[in-house]
C-alpha cells in the first residue's frame, strides 16, 4: 500500500500479492469520500516493485539479495461474483436494501463500484447476493463505517478486460481523494482472518516521517553485525528477524523499516524513484518538468506491521511528523582477513576475531530467535572456549 499525502490530499496505491485465479479476487475498502472516475487510475506494477526495492532492508555491502517482496493489503477474502446481473435490476435491489450504487466504472482490468449504504445488514445482504463471501461479524464493522458516512470502494476483476490486456498479474489500483482523515481501515481485514495479516505502508510526504498516532511506531533494529552466512539466507533471516521483533513487542507496534529523503540513498538497494515515477505514484507537488532543478521534496517512510483483531482493535491513524532523520534497516557483514602471519598483532587479531564472531552469533540469535548453537554450527565456530575464556578451575587438574 503506498500512501501519498500532503495537506488533505491523499493518493492511495493498492498493490497486492494475490496469487489465485483473477475471478476470485475482490476488495472492499471504506473510503472517506465519493470517488469519481477521474480519481481512479490503474498503475504500473513496476512502480511499487521499485519502491519496495529502494526501501527494502539491506545488507550493508552491495551483495545480491532477495528483497522481501511481501505485499499485503486490507482485503476481504471473497469468492467469485455470480453471473452478471442486469445493472438496472441490481440497482433496484440495492435500493431496496438501503444500498446505493453511487457509481460504476470499468478501469483497466477492474470493475469498480462505489457504494453507500444506510444500514450494515442491507450492505451485507447486497454483497452476499452479488456473490461476495462476507465473513460473519463483518456486518458490525461495515455498520460503523456507514455511520461515519464512509463510502465503499468495491473492485473485482473484469475477466474480459483482463484477458484483453494480457497481464499475468493484477495491477495496482490508485485512488485519489481529499479528506482530513489520514488513516487506513484495517478492521475489515481482521474480521475472520485465519491468522495475523501483514501490511506494508509506503508513505510519501513532503515534510517528514510518517508514524501511527494510535499505536507505537518503532524502528526495526539496524546496524547490527551478523555472521557472513546471512548473505546466503537473507530472506529467511529478515522474515525471522521481523517475526522475532513482533513477538518481542507483543504484536502491538508498527515498525519503521526505512525513512529517507527520496533524493538519494546510501547504500542504495535500488536507485531513487524518478520524478515521473513519483508523479505516477501520486506525488502531485513534484514537477515533471525535466528542466526544473532542485530536490524532489519527497520523504519516504516504509512501515511494516503484522496485525490481528486482538492487538489492533482500531484502524491505523497516521500523522506526518517533522522528522527528516534518515533511517534504514541494515545489517553489516564483516569479512575476516584470511591471510597467514605469525606476528603478535595477528594473534591479537585472531583472538579478537573469535570474540567478534561470537558476538555476531549472539546478535543473530537475539535478532531472529534462532538457537545460538545452530548459528555457531553454521558459522563453523567449533568451540567458543579460548584459553582466556576458561574459568580458573578448568585449568587446575589438566
Amino acid at each position, binding site marked *: 500500500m503506498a500512501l501519498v499525502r500532503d495537506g488533505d490530499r491523499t493518493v492511495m496505491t493498492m498493490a497486492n500479492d494475490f496469487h489465485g485465479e483473477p475471478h476470485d479476487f475482490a476488495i472492499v475498502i471504506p473510503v472517506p469520500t465519493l470517488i469519481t472516475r477521474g480519481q481512479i487510475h490503474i498503475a504500473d506494477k513496476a512502480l511499487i516493485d521499485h519502491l519496495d526495492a529502494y526501501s527494502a532492508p539491506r545488507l550493508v555491502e552491495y551483495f545480491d539479495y532477495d528483497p522481501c517482496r511481501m505485499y499485503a493489503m486490507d482485503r476481504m477474502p471473497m469468492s467469485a461474483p455470480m453471473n452478471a446481473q442486469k445493472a438496472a435490476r441490481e440497482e433496484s435491489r440495492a435500493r431496496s436494501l438501503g444500498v446505493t450504487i453511487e457509481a460504476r466504472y470499468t478501469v483497466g482490468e477492474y470493475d469498480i463500484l462505489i457504494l453507500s449504504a444506510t444500514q450494515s445488514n442491507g450492505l451485507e445482504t447486497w454483497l452476499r447476493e452479488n456473490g461476495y463471501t462476507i465473513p460473519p461479524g463483518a456486518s458490525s464493522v461495515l455498520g460503523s463505517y456507514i455511520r461515519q458516512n464512509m463510502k465503499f470502494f468495491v473492485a473485482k476483476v473484469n475477466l474480459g478486460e483482463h484477458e484483453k490486456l494480457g497481464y499475468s498479474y493484477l495491477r495496482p489500483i490508485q485512488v485519489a481523494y481529499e479528506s482530513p482523515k489520514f488513516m487506513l481501515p484495517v478492521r475489515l481485514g481482521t474480521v475472520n482472518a485465519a491468522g495475523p495479516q501483514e501490511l506494508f505502508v509506503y508513505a510519501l510526504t513532503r515534510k517528514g516521517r510518517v508514524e501511527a498516532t*494510535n499505536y507505537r511506531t518503532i524502528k526495526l533494529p539496524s546496524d547490527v553485525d551478523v555472521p557472513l552466512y546471512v548473505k546466503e539466507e537473507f530472506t529467511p533471516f529478515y522474515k525471522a528477524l521481523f517475526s522475532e521483533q513482533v513477538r518481542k513487542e507483543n504484536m502491538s507496534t508498527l515498525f519503521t523499516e526505512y525513512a529517507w529523503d527520496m533524493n538519494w540513498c546510501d547504500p542504495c538497494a535500488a536507485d531513487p524513484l524518478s520524478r515521473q515515477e513519483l508523479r505516477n505514484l501520486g506525488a502531485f507537488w513534484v514537477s515533471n518538468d525535466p528542466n526544473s532543478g532542485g530536490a524532489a521534496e519527497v520523504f519516504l517512510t516504509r512501515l511494516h506491521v503484522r496485525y490481528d483483531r486482538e492487538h489492533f482493535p482500531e484502524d491505523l491513524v497516521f500523522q506526518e511528523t517533522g522528522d527528516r532523520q534518515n533511517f534504514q534497516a541494515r545489517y553489516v557483514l564483516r569479512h575476516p582477513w584470511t591471510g597467514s602471519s605469525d606476528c603478535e598483532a595477528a594473534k591479537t587479531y585472531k583472538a579478537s576475531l573469535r570474540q567478534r564472531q561470537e558476538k555476531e552469533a549472539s546478535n543473530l540469535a537475539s535478532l531472529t530467535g534462532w538457537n545460538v548453537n545452530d548459528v555457531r554450527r553454521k558459522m563453523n565456530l567449533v568451540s567458543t572456549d579460548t584459553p582466556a575464556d576458561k574459568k580458573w578451575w578448568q585449568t587446575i587438574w589438566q
Partner: protein
Amino acid sequence: MKRFDPRLYQIGALTLLLLYGLTALDFDTTWFRAALVIGAAIGAQWVCSRIWNVKFDPRSAAISGLSLALLLRSNSIVFLLAAAGIAISSKFAIRWRGKHIFNPTNIAIVALMIATPRVWVSPGQWGNVAFFGFLITCLGGLVVNRASRSDVTYAFIAAWSAVLIGRSLWFGEPLTIPLHRLENGALLLFTFFMISDPKTTPDSRAGRILFAVLVALGARYVQFKLFHTNGILWSLAACSLLVPIIDVLLPGGRYTWKQGGSSWSVSPQWRWHFVPGLLPRIRSAAFMSQRAMPRFSIARRRWRSSATAIAP
C-alpha cells in the same frame, strides 16, 4: 506537620516515566536532548526569576522540562530550547489577576506546533503494554496531592471517557476501541500532570469541572471533526483562555504550592453557592472585565507584589 510538596512526587514520577521511555520504549529522543531541555527549563526559570525579581525555585521548572522531554520531539535542538524558554517565560509574562493563563508545557508545545512544522508530538509512543504501570504511577500523584485539585482530573477522565465510549456506541463499534484509546500513556500524562496543574485551572471546583468538560469537548472537536492529532493539547490551550472568564463567573480560592495539597484561602461557601448569585456575578464580571483587561498584558515587574504565586 509539614506537608509533603506534591511537586517532588511529580518530579519523581515524571523522571521514572522518562527513564522508562528512553530505555524500554525507544522514545524518539536522546539522553542528551532530554537533559538539555530540562536544564534549559531550569535555566530559564533562574533567568526569569532574576528579571521579575522573585525567589528562584527550580521545582516547577523541572516539571515543565521533564514534561517537554516526555512529549516534544524535534530534529533541531534550537526548537527544544525555544520550547523551554516559552514554557517558563509564559508563566511570568502571560498573566491575568496574578495567575498565569497557560500550562507552561502545553503553551510551549502548541506555540511551536503553530510556528513550525519541524516539531511534533507522538501520542502513540507509549503503546499500551505498560499502561497499568503508568496508571499506578499517576494515581500515586493523586494520593500525594491529597486529592486537593484532583477534581479536574476526575472530571476530565469522566468527560473524555464519555466522549470516546459514546462515540463508539453511536457508531456500533466494539468497546475495545474506546478502551484502546483510553489506555494511552500520553493521555495519562495529560490527565494527571498537565490539565491538573493547580496554577492554571479555575479557582472553584465547579469552574474546574466545567473547564474539564470543555477541554474534553474541544478535544473531541479537534480529533473527530478536524481529524487532527493531539486534540487534547490543542483543546487545553484554547480552553485555558476561558479560565479568567470562568474564574469571574465561578470564583474560588487561589492555590499556592507552599501550603501544599489541600489549601483553600477562601471560605468554603464560595465553592458551591455560585448558582443563586450567578446573574449578579455575570453583571459584575462585565464590570470587572473592563477594569481587569488592561492588566492582561505582557510586561515586566508588574506583579512583583504577587511573588509567591509566580514561582511555579
